[in-house]
């Protein structure tokens, strides 16, 4: 479902051109569990951003569900992200003034879902990450593990096919990190394509398919 062909991505940094992605060709099938590893500056975040449609490749072709997304406009990409992709970030990225429930609700608000449907799904989502009793807490009243669980609930609320996680345990202690990984792997077992970026070797090794990227090239 994800099909990258000869993807290049250049960045202009001052006078220098940085070749962040160098001829990447990659296919990821529906339901796969992939880890992307590499030293910092290797281009793994850029790869994730390209897959996530947050960044456009300088050249190459990207087919998502057989649709050439390199030709899409910004607003079309926004809709594809909304419907097909879920994000989990290292720094959680919850909106501080909104409660856990409201944060989870946000993608559905952007998608224009009716209020009843939103309420129903939020209750379900909170239950699935065992945070029913934290629905009305704001991010500053929650622990790191809880924050990441809220973020996962938010990522999954639109029932996307792909879940992209950028260092999801990078900011957590090992116990809550393990809980988060378990939660993500559970989702993968339910059929969600899971792509995790990490530089934690033991975490990367859990994935059946391991991708290693160095200097913008797949190894």
């Amino acid at each position, binding site marked *: 479902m994800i099909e990258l062909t000869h993807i290049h991505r250049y960045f202009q940094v001052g006078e220098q051109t940085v070749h962040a992605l160098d001829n990447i060709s990659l296919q990821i099938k529906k339901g796969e569990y992939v880890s992307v590893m590499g030293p910092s500056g290797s281009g793994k975040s850029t790869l994730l*951003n390209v897959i*996530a449609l*947050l*960044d456009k490749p300088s050249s190459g072709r990207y087919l998502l569900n057989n649709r050439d997304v390199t030709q899409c406009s*910004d*607003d079309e990409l*926004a*809709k594809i*992200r*909304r*419907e097909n992709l879920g*994000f989990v*970030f290292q*720094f959680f*990225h919850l*909106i*501080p*003034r*909104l409660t856990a429930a409201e944060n989870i609700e*946000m*993608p559905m*608000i*952007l*998608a*224009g879902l009716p209020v009843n449907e939103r309420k129903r799904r939020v209750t379900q989502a909170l239950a699935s990450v065992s945070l029913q009793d934290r629905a009305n807490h704001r991010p500053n009243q929650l622990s790191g593990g809880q924050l990441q669980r809220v973020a996962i609930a*938010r990522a999954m609320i*639109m029932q996307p096919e792909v879940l992209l996680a950028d260092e999801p345990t990078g900011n957590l202690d090992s116990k809550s990190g393990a809980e988060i990984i378990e939660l993500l792997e559970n989702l993968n077992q339910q059929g969600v394509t899971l792509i995790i970026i990490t530089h934690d070797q033991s975490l990367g090794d859990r994935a059946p398919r391991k991708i290693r990227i160095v200097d913008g090239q797949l190894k």
Partner: protein
Amino acid sequence: MFFKDILAQAINAIKSQRLRAILIILAMSIGVASVNVLTALGESARRYIVHEFEALGTHLVIVLPGRTETTGGSPPLFGETPRDLTLEDAQAFLHSRHIAAIAPLTIGSAPVSFQGLERETNIFGSTYALRRVRHLTMAQGNFLPEEETTKARSVCVIGQTIRTQLFANKSALGQWLRINDRRFRVIGVLAAEGQSIGVDFDEMVIIPVEQAQALFDTRSLFRILVETLSKESMTKAVEDIKNIIKARHEGEDDITIITQDSVVNTFDKILTALTLAVASIASISLAVAGVLVMNVMLVSVTQRTAEIGLLKALGATKGQLHGLFLTEAALLSIAGALTGLLIGQIIITVLQVTYPSFPLQLPWWTLLSSLAVSLVTGLVFGLLPASKAARLNPVWALTKR
């Protein structure tokens, strides 16, 4: 995304920045309040003055000697003419069916004295009809007697200021007042005119017109005040006056005719322009408030960069981000406008209570336009920050915390 949700999100964002919101609302409300109060003052001054002029007599025609080709300027005070406007001319006006009364007017300045107290003042030479034409009221005694003007006696009517200055505690009635080298018996005292515009009757001494002509050694009249039968007969009366003067002045209507209407209209226009000018000056403060809204919204976009990046990742389109930030700016502006209306109304009420004689009122169009202007200001100045938010690169935005 529903409008209701956009509204809820915008309100939520405003609530999370209370102090900032209060400051914007304050700035906006000061702008709106000052526009409203100043417009109310200007508009009320206009109505007050127009009303005052109309109180002088709604169907008054003023005839001046000499013809000046006026092209919309203010009426000439002293016409320059080879032919004088005389008492006989004035008398001839009475032949017109459309004229109810005439009051010829001679004006001059002369020393007025009583028992060693002396001052210079304006002397009005006129007839019995002046009282009716200018709606004068008497405090004591009588106005000039109604009689054939040629047999005028040496009597005078004085204003309140003259009375207090020259006669102090004594009764003025029946006393002999010396004007230049002539003596006039005081037969009446005018009621204090207070807030009459134009001529200050409180400083006035009125004597029969023939006496005044003799006093100032002139046959020419300063002007003739004509009261027509009705407002409708005004144009006909003007025609009649021109014809009568033509007949008497060898075929030339060498006079200038000012109707009460045109004076009122002129003042109306001037004061409307003044009101608009004052309102525009006040609206500068609205523009300043608009810049403040923009500034605060720009800071808000910068502070919420990560949030905007997140919303983009979650699938917010440019239109939605525009909507969110514009709604925020619009809400702040509306809140400011409403607060401003309230403050303005309070100030106006205070002024109304303090100066009950001044008819202070806020015209309804000001309410609507200040609301509209502040809303537009908010939106216009919200546009830049909103499009900045919408254009943010999500990858870059997400790295900000």
